């Protein structure tokens, strides 16, 4: 019941983003590949959704996290105290936001993959012998399962990035920092790993493993970026609650 109420509060911006993203991803998947040499049925999907890899932090925070910020600012949170425990209310809120963030990433990616497999119908060229792709046989033999699993994984990373925005919305007094800091973090992290010469550990690599040559992508590529983000989220919570002594229910 509480989950439904929380979902209802953010349904409009979430549905608009979801609908817009899905339409855009499907259109780009069905059109952009025409200027490229396509070797596999999922190639149009990777070409069409290339730009979303950088923008997804904005897409999972802007339509969702504003709501928690405004609930804090207009002191709505304080009025919930006599009715429900802090932990339960925040838990339900995070769950609703996580579900929304997951759907915002998962549905456009998976539906555009379906478009790539069943609608785009590109004329496939034989790949060169040197061509390798991450999880190559899986990518080639079972594109539907590959795209489903990768979309699920991207959805989970979307939830993780949204959690960063959620934590900022819990403590920060600046709406613009709440909404854009996850995006700025992803860009700076990307920049930082690239300067260090180990781009395989970027969060973008975990999100879009085909953005780098499969020779350099390893299992750690899927762990380091998300783990670093978890650490940053933890540090942010500690900084605000222990160092700055900010309280969630006061603003």
């Amino acid at each position, binding site marked *: 019941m509480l989950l439904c109420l929380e979902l209802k509060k953010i349904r409009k911006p979430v549905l608009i983003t979801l609908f817009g993203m899905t339409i855009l991803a499907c259109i780009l998947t069905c059109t952009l590949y025409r200027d490229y040499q396509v070797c596999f049925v999922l190639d149009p999907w990777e070409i069409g959704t290339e730009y979303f890899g950088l923008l997804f932090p904005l897409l999972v925070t802007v339509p969702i996290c504003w709501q928690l910020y405004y609930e804090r600012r207009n002191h709505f949170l304080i009025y919930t105290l006599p009715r429900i425990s802090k932990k339960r209310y925040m838990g339900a809120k995070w769950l609703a936001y996580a579900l929304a963030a997951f759907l915002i990433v998962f549905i456009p990616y998976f539906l555009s993959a379906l478009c790539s497999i069943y609608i785009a119908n590109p004329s496939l060229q034989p790949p060169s012998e040197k061509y390798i792709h991450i999880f190559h046989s899986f990518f080639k033999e079972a594109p539907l399962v590959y795209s489903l699993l990768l979309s699920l994984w991207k959805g989970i990373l979307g939830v993780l990035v949204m959690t960063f925005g959620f934590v900022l919305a819990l403590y920060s007094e600046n709406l*613009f920092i709440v909404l854009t800091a996850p995006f700025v973090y992803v860009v700076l992290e990307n920049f930082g790993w690239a300067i260090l010469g180990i781009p395989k550990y970027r969060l973008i690599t975990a999100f879009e493993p085909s953005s780098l040559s499969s020779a350099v992508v390893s299992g750690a590529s899927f762990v380091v970026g998300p783990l670093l983000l978890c650490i940053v989220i933890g540090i942010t919570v500690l900084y605000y609650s222990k160092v700055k002594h900010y309280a969630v229910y006061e603003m």
Partner: protein
Amino acid sequence: MLVLLEFLLDGILLALCSIGLFDRSKRNPSLLFLLCSALCVIFRTWVGGSETPLYYLLLPADSIWVLPFLFIGALWLNSLWFQASEGHIFWGTTAQFALYLLVKFVCALGLGLIGLESGFWAVYGSRLLAILLWWLLWETGTLHWLRDRLSDGDTLIRVIACNSLLVLVLLWTAYLQYTFSRGIWLPVAISILAILILADGLAFIWDQHHIQNRQRSRLLEQYLPMVEELVESVRARQHEFNNRMLAVSAAVDMAATLDEAKTTVAGLVGQVGLDATDRELLRCDSKVISGMLFGKTKQAELRHIRLEIAITAALLHRSLSETGWVELIGILVDNALEASASGDTIFLRAENENGMVRLTVSNPCSPVSNIELTEMFKRGWSTKADTGRGYGLFNACRLVEQHGGKIIIRNERMCGQNYLTIGALVP
């Protein structure tokens, strides 16, 4: 060393645009100049790929992909530096970039037209001139006006700021690419410009509609309580009417002869019935106008002036809106009340004339010459010596003419004395 001067000038202009559009600073404003310069350094040296200074003539970025990051940087700085609502910060930052690009464009273009499109004047002169142009805008009060409108949340200004930024960014990208003639920029630019002009027009229409709705809500709030008062007075009369009918019935039963019954009934029925003015007001198709006129009759009663109303034409669904009718009738009745003395009678009539509405308000007045009659509708004409008066009839005339109507004004002989009749013929 000279490159540092470029960063500094760009940072100063960016900070000045910010200061011009936001008023209440939370922190030291001088630090903002330093941070804006730092922002320009970051985006130009670390993110920018080009070395040519002309690439950075208009913005401290050399690609459209860098611009959103520069925008977010400025958004953060503004939100940390100024005390303003989120809407003001966001749209103010949009306007800040539009203003920054606009002054830079004007200066660079101006210098380009006199043949100074490269060298010292293009790189440093245009930057100095842009700061000078900002100062001129500040001194003329343009920036204060823009800041107030943004702070009030004016939709039209927000849309114009957003569209101006998009157009200027488009021009900036075209300038960077030098491809207006050979790429796809021309059709794309024309399409975007057309969409933006359409968006401006739609925003303007929406804004006007919003203002009209607000005016109507205000009128309803003001005059509907008066309509309720009118209905209450009719209800009270209805109650009295029922009592009188019972008394008439009893009088007829009790009377011994027909003549006795006639006399008693005539005495009982004499004062029963709805007041003529109330009846006319109930007949009016606009409840807002009824409410306003009811208020005016009460106002006249207080001054012992009688306001006789006769409405036989429908006022709604004419070229003049309900708000317009209220404004017009209000001006005419107020003028008539001001010109009348205790014991006078004012006549208000609204009747059909060849498919149009003839609205007239007549008040007793000594005959007025034709020259005076025409002078009355000029701005500032008044019978009183006070300043700031004489706008009522001028506004009424303008309102009627804007809606294709005609003003009526004449001397009339009524009830054995001269009356001045002022009104309008509205299609």
